[in-house]
């Protein structure tokens, strides 16, 4: 069992105008992600903006779905939903980075369908890696734009 305690997580406190602007910018991609690494290649910060869903199932469990990260999770208590979302994404990052499973966080995301945005690939100015999630599934695409995106900022000490 690995237990990482030094990851702190907080929701970004954007004003309404800023978040509206950001959701307008996101029209062409459903979810975005930005990864910052230090000189030694260690993951320092991950900023995630992704839509999430939760619904109450027949047996009184809350089903959380994050299709951009392939996460499906049942939660008993509705007040635990936010914590469960961040915990499951943290688990994915820890598995790929610290526990040595897979080929690294970005590589695993690319294998799952995340892409480097075309504008970024041309300019390639910053060292930070940004990725976005696109799909050909029209139903999923419409659903994505009807939901409120969840913004997470993960700081890895």
């Amino acid at each position, binding site marked *: 069992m690995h237990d990482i305690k030094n990851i702190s997580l907080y929701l970004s406190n954007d004003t309404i105008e800023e978040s509206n602007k950001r959701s307008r910018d996101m029209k062409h991609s459903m979810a975005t992600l930005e990864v910052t690494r230090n000189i030694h290649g260690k993951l320092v910060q991950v900023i995630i903006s992704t839509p999430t869903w939760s619904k109450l199932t027949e*047996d009184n469990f809350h089903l959380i779905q994050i299709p951009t990260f392939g996460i499906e*999770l049942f939660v008993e*208590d509705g007040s635990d939903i936010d914590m469960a979302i961040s915990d499951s994404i943290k688990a994915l990052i820890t598995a790929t980075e610290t526990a040595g499973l897979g080929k690294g966080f970005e590589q695993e*995301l690319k294998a799952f369908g995340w892409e480097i945005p075309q504008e970024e690939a041309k300019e390639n100015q910053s060292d930070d890696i940004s990725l976005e999630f696109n799909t050909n599934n029209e139903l999923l695409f419409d659903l994505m734009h009807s939901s409120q995106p969840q913004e997470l900022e993960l700081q890895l000490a």
Partner: protein
Amino acid sequence: MASPFQLPTVDYDFIHQQLKKSPNLESSLRIGYVTSYFKNGTSPLIKRASYIHHGKSNQVPFEKATALAYKFGFMNELLDWLRDNRQYVDGGISDMAKELSP
């Protein structure tokens, strides 16, 4: 009183024990209240991951339990456990439903 048609829940301890025994399990990882289980294979790690949240009662819903049993190959053990501990027979009639039927 629970409805006779409601699906039963499964104890987390039983699921964890079966997953640890399974030859398909590559690794497990607990962060906060979420434990993730990774199946072995060559497909992307995200597709091989399953997540369980630990609530107050530490129960796993029927849907998740059967999905994990299918992926990790302990369906027979799960159905035996449900018959012994929850009086639930898959495709059969539960005792509670028998009492209600004329």
